[in-house]
């Protein structure tokens, strides 16, 4: 576990500018809408939902270029020359990406609590934030899977296609297929969740997302362990 945390901490440090920008964006957005006197709960909820959905995208995009950057700078070799397995390395990147996106989600949640305080929507915001965090984890795992063997641009296209696949299949074969890779569904869940009433998403969906995140991490590690990491990338 220690190598995973060390690699994750190092990743966060390397991406500190990105993390800082995300946090700054979340803080500024919260301040802007929180200080608007005439903003309704629905207006604020719209902004918060949008910010939480961004977390899923950010998570995927940060993960997509992570391996490529390490290989390009050849810093990967100095890490993998130590007692670190490729599985631990991929896990470290996944934890690092999550540390950044979950920090972003946490800042949104804190801003949201401040914005919605006394308006009876904090519990719903907490659930929405949790859903966004799980979806961000799955997005990062899918992105890392493709990034383990494809260059970033191709990996982005491949990940986009895979995420869209359940939507296409469900149109032909029924809505149950939407849950086969529930990234789109989790995003839709955040976007459509009601703020004023007690609501909880289907736990099965969250469980599928968590299990698939683990599966994609293991697949990424398996594929990455067969890669020649010393070959220069262009």
């Amino acid at each position: 576990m220690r190598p995973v945390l060390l690699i994750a901490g190092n990743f966060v440090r390397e991406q500190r500018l990105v993390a800082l920008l995300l946090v700054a964006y979340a803080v500024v957005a919260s301040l802007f809408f929180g200080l608007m006197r005439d903003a309704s709960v629905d207006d604020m909820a719209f902004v918060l939902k949008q910010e939480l959905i961004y977390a899923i995208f950010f998570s995927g995009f940060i993960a997509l270029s992570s391996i490529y950057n390490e290989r390009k700078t050849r810093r990967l070799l100095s890490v993998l020359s130590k007692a670190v397995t490729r599985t631990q390395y991929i896990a470290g990147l996944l934890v690092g990406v999550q540390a950044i996106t979950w920090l972003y989600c946490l800042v949104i949640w804190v801003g949201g609590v401040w914005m919605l305080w006394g308006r009876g929507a904090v519990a719903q915001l907490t659930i929405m934030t949790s859903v966004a965090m799980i979806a961000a984890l799955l997005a990062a795992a899918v992105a890392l899977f493709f990034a383990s063997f494809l260059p970033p641009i191709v990996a982005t296209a491949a990940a986009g296609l895979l995420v869209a696949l359940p939507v296409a299949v469900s149109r032909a074969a029924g809505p149950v297929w939407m849950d086969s890779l529930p990234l789109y569904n989790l995003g839709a869940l955040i976007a459509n969740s009601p703020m004023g009433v007690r609501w909880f998403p289907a736990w099965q969906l969250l469980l599928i997302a968590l299990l698939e995140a683990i599966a994609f991490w293991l697949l990424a590690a398996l594929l990455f362990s067969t890669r020649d990491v010393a070959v220069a990338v262009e």
Partner: protein
Amino acid sequence: MDPVLQFEHVSKWYRSWFRERTVRALHDFTLSIEPGEIFGFLGPNGAGKTTAIHIALGFTRPSRGGGTMLGRPFGHAPTRARIGFLAENVALYHRPALRLVRFYGALNGLRDPQLAKRAREVLDTMELDADADRNVGKFSRGMLQRVGLAQALVNDPELLILDEPTSALDPLARVAIRELLLAAKRAGKTVFLSSHLLSEIELICDRVAILHRGEIVRMGRTSDLLESRETLHVSARGVPAQAFAGAEALDGLVRFTIPNEQQRAVMEKIWEMGGEVVSLYPEKKSLEQVFVELTKAEERSA
């Protein structure tokens, strides 16, 4: 004793995307590194030296063959905690030197207070103690190389694998690294040293292998490699220099070189002339000469 590093019939080739072009990096490469030796690994650019090192560390998989490092198959992660590696063109994270060395030490399982002690020690050894809190992003290439060596040494490795460790260092730093490697050998460590600096290799390596186009073209003890089997140096007294082709007279001695097969005839000639043979020894070549001769001969035969 079991070899510290062993390559067994390793071949490696790289194929382009549609397999229309194949580049052979190593071919049936077999090599054993014994415990406690400093082994020099030489070859022109593209000979396959770095590929061999990368296979040993598990960065690259061999196309054929395999091997062991400290008794475990190549790529075994826990074994890497017992080795130190410095890559060619060292690339490190931009953070203060001390923190960086601590990071790499921690990845190898070191913990405080041992980690803190070792990190300070290796930076001191590399004469970077005054710069320990400076970000390595602002270091010169030579300083970066020294930090690279520090991170390779922080876990007190049994086997040091160094790919061009002194390429960016000034002469003083090179001497220091040479001393460090000799001290490591005295402490029972094994050093696998790939370098273009033939004079360095000649000075410190017990054995040398010369690699060309993915194959070992010569391997042996450094002293044996440098000794010519074709030419002998002769010093004689009491004979005229003109009697031998290319001879020079100095301080009462006549010195010249002869082909090995003429040894007996030349001795007899000196004695017949009433002279005395003072010394007769094989011509000693520099490693550079051996290297250039071998690689040129290989180029011609290719």
